[in-house]
Each structure stands twice: as structure tokens, then as C-alpha cells.
């Protein structure tokens, strides 16, 4: 038994070398799969439903994939459409697919698998005690679900259902990255340990190659091993580079959790076949006691206006740590005054980040930084944009004339690169969930719609 799986790139729209992709197509893969999403861009994609990458870039990649699929007559599976995997992300990519199909005269059956979760369903799960926290999960309450936007992360099963019903092109909402690559061999009975390890290895495309790239990988999955090959001519794979990929964006490289169980790579071995191919054996898949689907949620925090400035004067730099707390009290009083008590200062977050003096590191600096210039990023976050902007205008004004004890008269304490100094950033979101739903069937949280293109 041999399954050939083609992973053209780590992210749809990131781009890939068309020549390298052709080498993968020439190997006659049984499936082409590609991830289109991640939480790694932050909560804005899920909160707003806006994709990270442009329609133009996604269309460029999709055209090559759809042509190759047509030539081979095999399934094309795109996961986590629109970055967040929200329903509108699936619809957005589907519209691009229809446009390409019309222009290229391609015809196929398309399956759209949606993963948005209605608040009422989640509230019912919550009431039944069926929403369980994963490590480092934030506290949640029942009201969260109505406030936020939530997707469930599918495993292989909804994709297999679409494959069995004859879909040629499958666009999924939020899906485990590995599920896209695992679905075909899993459905056709390949060894589960090898299948999930193979999927984990190629989910980011050639990220595990030397040097890493956005290009593709090809896998030959056989009875007792899989061979993974890099397709770009100027890249290599080594046993170590492939082994190291289990580390990437993952807390534990030896226990990788899937909805149906855990991939255990403790006993996996990696050996070089040639400069571009590594043979992998030995991972095991341990089925879980019960099926779970992970939930991802994002909610609106407020609307934000930002101000960027800089300081060069050492006297001002020396006073900044004292002046910033002083200004916060001043701004609270000013908000009460300006808005006549209609805006509660505690609803407005005014934050000063001193770049060059400890803005980046989340922890405390072991040694004080002593820069000659400091960048100041001021963020004003309020329930609505108009309030954030109005507060930011007097924050920018007052911050450029901070009172410096050594100086008499009005001094300019901040260098502003922009006129006006305030920039409205729009809505701000935050992640709300790191939880699973327990006691579900593998497909009940997802809806599939099929159409002829």
C-alpha cells in the first residue's frame, strides 16, 4: 500500500515555487492538501472575519492547485479558509474558487464544511458541563458565547464524509492542520501513527527543510514508514530537520493532541534516504477515551486609537517612568471633565509603551536598558471609536508637553512622526477560549454544503 500526499505550501496565499509544485504533481499524488489559516496572526482574523492574506495572493495559489487537481482527478482539500476558518472565510475562498473555475473552464463537485458555532449551542454545552478547559485556558462565563465569535476545530471525519460523498474540492472552516493531510490515508485504512505523524510533518509545507521555505513537500506513506521529500531544488531535508519539526509551535513534541487521540512520537526514528528525502518510522497513535473538538473564540475588546512618538532628551527619558503614572490620573480627570461624566474613565484604557525601555519583553528586564532614544507608543482603547479618538487627541496634546521639573516654560517632550499624531486602528479583539467540547460525535458540530461548479 502506498499513499502519496502533496503539500504545496505552508499557507494558501503565501506563495510557492510553481516548478517545485510541478515535481510534486508529476509524482501523481492521491490528494493535494493545503492549510489556509492559523491563530498565529492574533485574534483579529477570528474576531473580525477578515483574512490575513489578500484575495489576489490566495487566487494565485488556488489557480495552480485547481488546475493540478483537474489534471490528476484527485481531491483538493483547503483547511481553515480565510485565516480564522469562520463561515465567511469559507464563503470568501469559495467565491474565488468559482471565479477561477469559470475562467479556466474547470468543473467539479465542491464541498464547503462550516464550523461557526451558534451561541445557544455553546450555552447548552456549558450548562451541561461539556466545555472543558485545556492547559492555560482563561476563565469563561456563560455570557461569553453571546459576546464572542466561536469556531470549532474539526478533525478528519467531516472531511472524510465529504470525500465519501464525492467532493473533489473541499473547503473547510476551522480544521486541525493535520486533518487535511491525514483524511485520505486515514479513511483508507493507513497506519494511524504513521498517518498522523506524516500529517504533522508536512502541515507547514517545507518549513522543516534546510533552508526553510514556503515551498512544498511530498510524502510516500507505506505500511511501516513514510518518506518525506522536499520539492524545491535548492533545499534539503535531514533526519534532524524533520525530527525538529515536531517542536514547531507546539508545547510538547512527543505528545500531539488530535480530536480523536494523541500522536506519540517518543519512539519515532528518522533516517536519510538521500539529500532531499527522510524516512520516518515508529510513531504511535493512542485513541482518546472520548472524542473532543477544540473551540476557538474571539470577542471585541473595544476600539483603539494609537499615537507614536519618540524621545531623545535624556532629561525627559529620565523622568518618563514618573511622568507616565502622573498622566494617567490627569487623563482620568480630563475624561470626566470633557465628556461631562458620560464616559467612565475606567472604560478607557490608556497605555504607554516605552520602546527601548522594556516594551517588548513580557517579563522584567534582567538588566536596565539605557537607550539614547526611546520610542513611545500610546494606545487608547475605548468602547467606541469616536471616544477613543477624542481621548487620544488630548492624550497626544498633553503628552507632547509633559511637565519636566528641570525646565521652565513650555517644552516639547515627544517627537511625533505623523500629522495628525492620532491613528484610528478600529476594533480590537481578544482570544476567549482554549477549551474543548466533550461527548460529541466527530461530525455533529459541522455543516457541509455541496455544489456543482
Amino acid at each position: 500500500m502506498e499513499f502519496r500526499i502533496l503539500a504545496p505550501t505552508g499557507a494558501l496565499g503565501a506563495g510557492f515555487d510553481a516548478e517545485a509544485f510541478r515535481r510534486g504533481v508529476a509524482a501523481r499524488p492521491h490528494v493535494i492538501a493545503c492549510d489556509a489559516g492559523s491563530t498565529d496572526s492574533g485574534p483579529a482574523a477570528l474576531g473580525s472575519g477578515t483574512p490575513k492574506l489578500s484575495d489576489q495572493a490566495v487566487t494565485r495559489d488556488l489557480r495552480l492547485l485547481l488546475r493540478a487537481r483537474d489534471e490528476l482527478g484527485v481531491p483538493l482539500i483547503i483547511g481553515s479558509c480565510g485565516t480564522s476558518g469562520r463561515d465567511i472565510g469559507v464563503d470568501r475562498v469559495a467565491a474565488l474558487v468559482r471565479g477561477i473555475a469559470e475562467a479556466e473552464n474547470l468543473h467539479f463537485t465542491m464541498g464547503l464544511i462550516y464550523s461557526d458555532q451558534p451561541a445557544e449551542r455553546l450555552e447548552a454545552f456549558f450548562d451541561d458541563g461539556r466545555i472543558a478547559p485545556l492547559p492555560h485556558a482563561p476563565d469563561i462565563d456563560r455570557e461569553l458565547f453571546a459576546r464572542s465569535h466561536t469556531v470549532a476545530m474539526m478533525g478528519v471525519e467531516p472531511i472524510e464524509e465529504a470525500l465519501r460523498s464525492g467532493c473533489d474540492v473541499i473547503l473547510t472552516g476551522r480544521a486541525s492542520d493535520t486533518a487535511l493531510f491525514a483524511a485520505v490515508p486515514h479513511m483508507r485504512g493507513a497506519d494511524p501513527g504513521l498517518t498522523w505523524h506524516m500529517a504533522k510533518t508536512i502541515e507547514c509545507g517545507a518549513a522543516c527543510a534546510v533552508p526553510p521555505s514556503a515551498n512544498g513537500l511530498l510524502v510516500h506513506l507505506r505500511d511501516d514508514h513514510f518518506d518525506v521529500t522536499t520539492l524545491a531544488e535548492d533545499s534539503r531535508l535531514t533526519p534532524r530537520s524533520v525530527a525538529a519539526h515536531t517542536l514547531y509551535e507546539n508545547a510538547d513534541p512527543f505528545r500531539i493532541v488530535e480530536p480523536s487521540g494523541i500522536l506519540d512520537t517518543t519512539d519515532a526514528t528518522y533516517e536519510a534516504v538521500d539529500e532531499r528525502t527522510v524516512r520516518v518510522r515508529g510513531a504511535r497513535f493512542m485513541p482518546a477515551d472520548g472524542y473532543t473538538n477544540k473551540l476557538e473564540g474571539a470577542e471585541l475588546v473595544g476600539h483603539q486609537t494609537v499615537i507614536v512618538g519618540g524621545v531623545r532628551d535624556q532629561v525627559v527619558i529620565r523622568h518618563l517612568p514618573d511622568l507616565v503614572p502622573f498622566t494617567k490620573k490627569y487623563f482620568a480627570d480630563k475624561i470626566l471633565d470633557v465628556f461631562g461624566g458620560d464616559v467612565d474613565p475606567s472604560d478607557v484604557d490608556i497605555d504607554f509603551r516605552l520602546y527601548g525601555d522594556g516594551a517588548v519583553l513580557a517579563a522584567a528586564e534582567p538588566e536596565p536598558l539605557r537607550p539614547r532614544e526611546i520610542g513611545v507608543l500610546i494606545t487608547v482603547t475605548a468602547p467606541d471609536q469616536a471616544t477613543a479618538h477624542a481621548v487620544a487627541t488630548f492624550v497626544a496634546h498633553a503628552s507632547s508637553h509633559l511637565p519636566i521639573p528641570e525646565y521652565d516654560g513650555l517644552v516639547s517632550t515627544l517627537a511625533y512622526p505623523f500629522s495628525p499624531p492620532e491613528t484610528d486602528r478600529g476594533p480590537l479583539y481578544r482570544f476567549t477560549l482554549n477549551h474543548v467540547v466533550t461527548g460529541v460525535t466527530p461530525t455533529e458540530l459541522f455543516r457541509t454544503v455541496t455544489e456543482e461548479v
Partner: protein
Amino acid sequence: MTTLLDFCSLVRSKNAGPFTLTFDFMCHDQAAYDTLVGTGFLNKDLFARLYGVHPADILLVNHPLALAVKVSFPRPEPQGDLHDADCYAGQQYAPLMDLPIETDHAS
């Protein structure tokens, strides 16, 4: 003075999901890996002290085939939250690079 750069070809911090911060320490070769692990420099107390987390919340894994040490713990702020300044957690490893590493095994 010996530092992480003497042992590692790559030191990386990343998100492992929006609520977990993870570090990869990829060594130059087998000898560097064996020596670095042998020093015991990368231990839970170091990360607890530098990043203000409880040692019980820290996962530390040696990965001999990858010649790597991996450390993970809860993110100080969830990714992209109001006061998070490092959305990809890409610079959180930096203070580790300046610390001296004691390699004298004579004692």
C-alpha cells in the same frame, strides 16, 4: 564567557496556541547538545525566575534526535490581548542570550 550562542544554531520563542509561550533551543551538533544539557543551565528555576511563572507550570523536554531542548509555559498575556506587546512571541527569548553559562564540570 560562554553563552547560549556558543551552543545553539537557533534560539526561538513562539506561540504554541494563543495561551502558551514556547522556546526552542537548537544545538549546533551532538557535542554542543550534550554539553548544554550537561550544564543544567536550561532548567525550570531559570524560566520561573526570569519570566515570573510557577515552576509547576513549566514543561521542559529534551529532544535528542532534534538536538534540541524545548521549554513551554503559560503566556504572560494571551496573544494579542490589550497589553500584549509581542503577538508572535518572537522576541521573548532575548534575555536568555546574554546570560553566562558555567561549563566547568571539574567540580
